[in-house]
């Protein structure tokens, strides 16, 4: 059998509820979302033979396999870089399937990131230590200076970009307002039924002055998300219409690091997203105007603008006008983060927005794009990306 580079597909997606206190272990969340993804696909969890998660996920492969009754795990791997590399899980799963190494690859990310621990608390109280595999030197080089939270690192990363193009905090508000409007209509979203106005955004407290307010920041959430990847051929025989992975890639250019990303040449661009875009468009032969929806990692609102620009949806510095003009809306040029994103729905490290891309292709989103048929979706987490397509 000849194998093409475009033969992997997403057969199932699953999740737990998104909350601020799950009341159960992260392993249980992982197991629950994994079973949900398998059930969605119509595949027995016993038949999972590949597993992918984040380096910083606290659940162990063996423990999860024990919960799921996995008979014979053939391949396991983890991706570095936290949420920035979220889409690299899809990349890995695609590669495992395309190489003929696995039939049913489970991707999972499950965390009690609100109730059990919180990113960015005093590192000494948390007894955190510097570890490799996180892709960031923030603990080593930022903490003694009072930059102790992801928001502080993110603001410092965005400051020069915002200054250069005159992006004000109010400009960022249009992203928050749009995403909260999506979340308000999404029963899975923590902020279901709770839209905000631009004035609400402007009245929220400064987190990082003068760049980020509270409503520019992703939530802290408990929950789990899972994706089941198999071959397109197999997926055609399963329960759901297959969502093809037509391309996926990762890009870590020289001197780029995750979030405390101050050492590369030009701090007014996101070179990792530019690298992902370049490879992804070359790999798929597609272009920005071929996308009907995007799921873009939005830990902090400025990074949505930087990614929109890196992928060529608008020119450098024009991201603010793109979002102000309704570019992210359902009838806009690029409906974006229609689940409400990480600010509106939940923060499951980007995974929850990626499965919204799957729903858009299936036509099952509660904020379904209807103006056009959703043929292609861009999934970007900054350092990795994928294009999903209707098979």
């Amino acid at each position, binding site marked *: 059998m000849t194998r093409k580079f475009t033969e992997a597909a997403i057969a199932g997606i699953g999740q737990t509820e998104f909350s601020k206190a799950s009341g159960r272990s992260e392993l249980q969340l992982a197991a629950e979302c994994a079973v949900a993804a398998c059930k969605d696909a119509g595949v027995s969890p016993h038949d999972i033979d590949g597993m992918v998660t984040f380096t910083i996920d606290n659940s162990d492969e063996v423990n999860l396999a024990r919960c799921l009754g996995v008979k014979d795990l053939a391949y396991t791997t983890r991706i570095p870089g936290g949420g920035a590399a979220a889409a690299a899980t899809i990349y890995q799963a695609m590669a495992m399937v395309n190489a003929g190494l696995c039939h049913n690859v489970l991707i999972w990310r499950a965390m009690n990131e609100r109730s059990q621990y919180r990113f960015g608390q005093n590192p000494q*109280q948390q007894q955190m230590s510097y570890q490799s595999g996180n892709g960031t030197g923030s603990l080593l*080089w930022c903490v003694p*200076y009072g930059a*102790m939270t992801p*928001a502080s690192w993110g603001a*410092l990363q965005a*400051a020069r970009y915002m200054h250069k193009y005159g992006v004000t905090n109010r400009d960022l508000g249009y992203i928050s307002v749009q995403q909260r409007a999506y979340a308000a209509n999404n029963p899975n979203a923590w902020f279901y039924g709770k839209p905000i106005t631009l004035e609400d955004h402007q009245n929220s407290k400064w*987190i990082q*002055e003068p760049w980020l307010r509270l409503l520019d920041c992703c939530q802290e959430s408990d929950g789990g998300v899972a994706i089941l990847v198999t071959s397109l051929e197999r997926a055609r025989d399963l329960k759901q219409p297959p969502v093809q992975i037509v391309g996926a890639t990762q890009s870590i250019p020289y001197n780029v690091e995750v979030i405390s990303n*101050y050492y590369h040449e030009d701090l007014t661009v996101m070179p990792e997203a530019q690298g992902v875009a370049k490879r992804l468009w070359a790999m798929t032969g597609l272009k920005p105007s071929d996308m009907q929806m995007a799921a873009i990692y939005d830990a902090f609102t400025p990074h949505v603008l930087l990614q929109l620009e890196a992928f060529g949806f608008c020119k450098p510095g024009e991201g603010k006008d793109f979002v102000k003009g309704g570019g992210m809306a359902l009838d806009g040029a690029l409906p974006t983060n229609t689940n409400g994103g990480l600010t509106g729905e939940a923060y499951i490290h980007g995974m929850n927005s990626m499965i919204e891309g799957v729903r858009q292709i299936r036509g099952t989103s509660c904020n379904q794009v209807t103006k056009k048929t959703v043929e292609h979706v861009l999934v970007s987490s900054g350092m990795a990306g994928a294009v999903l397509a209707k098979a």
Partner: protein
Amino acid sequence: MSTPTEAAAPTAPKPTRIPPIVTLDAKFFWDGADQEQFLGQKCSDCGLFTFPPRPMCPQCFSVNRREVPLSGRGTVHGWTIPRHPPPFGFKESPIVAVIELEEGIRMVSNVVGCGYDEIRQDMPVEVTFEATMNNHKVPVFRPRT
């Protein structure tokens, strides 16, 4: 302990700033800072400055590196004021900045002796030092005219 009989010199308040985590490859940098020396890493073979410090030169792959005094002069490449949560160890929000040094490398630090309404992107700064907990010091920057 006995009660001091003479009027003791007023003691500076104990530093509350968190000390750096010191890795082997960056030990020279923090050891230098403790002595109020601002040191950078330069490749002995091709002369490339690198930051963060690393055990190999990415240009010529040499492991011969020299710890050289840096000029201590630079500019504010980007900055932010952390408001919430209040950064641990600071009575008032510090100004956190990416400093671009004359040697062409960047590092995160603070701008001190500068009002919130005085901080500007690209403003010239020069190095000084502030104490941390556990008797360490870290390089910070103040406005330079």
